[in-house]
């Protein structure tokens, strides 16, 4: 009885052991020398096989880097860290000296409450599929369809569907890989520099009236943000009926635009910015009062001026203009997630 249970164990175990020894021997004997830099590069990559680099997995990307077929800064999840490490391994200089960390933003605020629907869509819960049915159920032909194809596409679980039917980006998890950007059939998601914090949450090219009838928070193309008083450095330009932001310029214009926009289409991810205060050095020249875009400074000529805290948006224009250096900014940045 004992041998009838023991024997199969021994035989099968023995065979397995024999094969494993054989395989181990073969793997040593027939080991293929590969470029040692390949495994070094694999170690410094993010190692999540997300495919954002355009190669099927981290290994394929590392092989392409070793062969010199691709630029070394392809790993977006790894970011600047990975790129500089690869540069060290490959002994080349990083091509882009300054790596700008990007983050995805959803450029639509028209959720269930704000934007109308043309009909009830009951098909496959997928934006691409919904787009095929008469161009989507959303009344706005540019707005977010809210079926979460971008959420599915996100490899890092940085996207989730909010209560109002719009995707929400978790900035801490977002690596700026851009998978969601290509997944969105309406091209609503954009990558902006992480430091920028402000974006225009609408991509509609329609005229003001058309936008107003379908959505209460869409950009009506009024061009207030584009006016030289608001945007002197040309950060904001008009492209058709929609302002575009040149993040490379990144002046204080954006912050002013947030407060000038009548439809509140500009979104500032920072909910609380430090405000200015004017100290006793002020001689009441009135320059700050003139330059303030939101009329947040009051005071008679020749008297010490005063900042109205409730009106101040913390753009800092007056700080740079004050000839006496009497204005300073006090307080800390308050982020949306800390609210």
């Amino acid at each position, binding site marked *: 009885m004992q041998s009838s249970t023991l024997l*199969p164990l021994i*035989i*099968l175990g023995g*065979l397995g052991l024999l094969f494993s020894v054989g*395989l181990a021997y073969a793997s040593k004997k*027939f080991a293929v020398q590969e470029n040692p830099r390949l495994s070094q590069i694999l170690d410094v990559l993010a190692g999540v096989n997300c495919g954002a680099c355009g190669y099927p997995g981290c290994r394929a990307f590392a092989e392409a880097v070793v062969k010199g077929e691709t630029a070394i800064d392809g790993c977006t999840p790894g970011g600047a860290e990975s790129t500089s490490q690869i540069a060290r391994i490959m002994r080349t200089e990083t091509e882009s000296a300054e790596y700008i960390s990007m983050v995805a933003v959803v450029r639509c605020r028209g959720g269930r409450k704000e934007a109308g629907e043309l009909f009830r869509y009951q098909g496959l819960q997928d934006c691409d599929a919904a787009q095929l049915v008469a161009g989507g159920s959303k009344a706005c032909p540019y707005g977010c369809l809210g079926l979460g194809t971008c959420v599915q596409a996100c490899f890092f679980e940085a996207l989730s569907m909010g209560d109002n039917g719009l995707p929400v980006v978790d900035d801490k998890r977002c690596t700026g890989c851009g998978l969601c950007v290509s997944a969105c059939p309406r091209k609503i998601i954009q990558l902006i520099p992480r430091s920028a914090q402000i974006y225009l949450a609408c991509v509609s090219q329609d005229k003001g009236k058309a936008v107003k009838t379908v959505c209460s928070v869409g950009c009506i193309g009024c061009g207030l943000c584009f006016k030289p008083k608001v945007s002197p450095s040309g950060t904001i330009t008009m492209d058709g009926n929609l302002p575009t932001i040149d993040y490379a310029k990144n002046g204080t214009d954006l912050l002013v635009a947030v407060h000038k926009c009548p439809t509140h289409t500009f979104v500032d991810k920072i909910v609380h910015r430090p405000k200015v205060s004017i100290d006793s050095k002020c001689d009441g020249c009135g320059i700050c009062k003139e330059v303030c875009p939101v009329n947040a400074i009051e005071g008679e000529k020749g008297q010490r001026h005063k900042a109205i805290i409730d009106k101040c948006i913390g753009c800092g224009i007056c700080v740079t203009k004050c000839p006496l250096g009497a204005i300073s900014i006090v307080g800390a940045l308050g982020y949306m997630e800390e609210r």
Partner: protein
Amino acid sequence: MGEFLIILVSAILVNNFVLARFLGICPFLGVSKKTDTALGMGMAVTFVMTLASIFTNLIYNQVLIPFHLEYLQIVTFILIIASLVQLVETVLRKTSPALYHALGIYLPLITTNCAILGLALLNIIKNYDLVRSIVFALGAGIGFTLALLIMSGMRERLEFADVPKVLRGVPIALIVAGLLSMAFMGFSGLVKM
């Protein structure tokens, strides 16, 4: 010699592994979109089949039968096939990188291909000795390659055919596979075993 020929013809045409025995349907549908990949897969399967039939036959006759452990055959065969495929992959990578890259992903996929296990078990059922099982394996492999080649040729032409919208892709492939299988039934009178 005549018997070997019968075994060969029977494995290639009459009892074709894919079209008559319905073994290895997964690669038959999965890898039959392009002729060159179909050929690569066919070659890989033939190669592994021949090797596997040698090893399974040896181990079955020299180890399992003397210890009366015939009931362990499936487990043992899977063990043998899996190790063998791994070994072949390791050796090929070193000795013939060109062939290794040509077979590519198909080689490891063969590990879980039921056609190989089916072949090993059929060898036992049919009581083939070592030489006969090698011939049978060769025939089975060639038959598999033939089925894949015919299928891929037809699917390449189907790309340009005016297929009704609902049938495009996998549905028409399955219909074609069925028709092909019926066509191969015509060979059933060819060999009397």
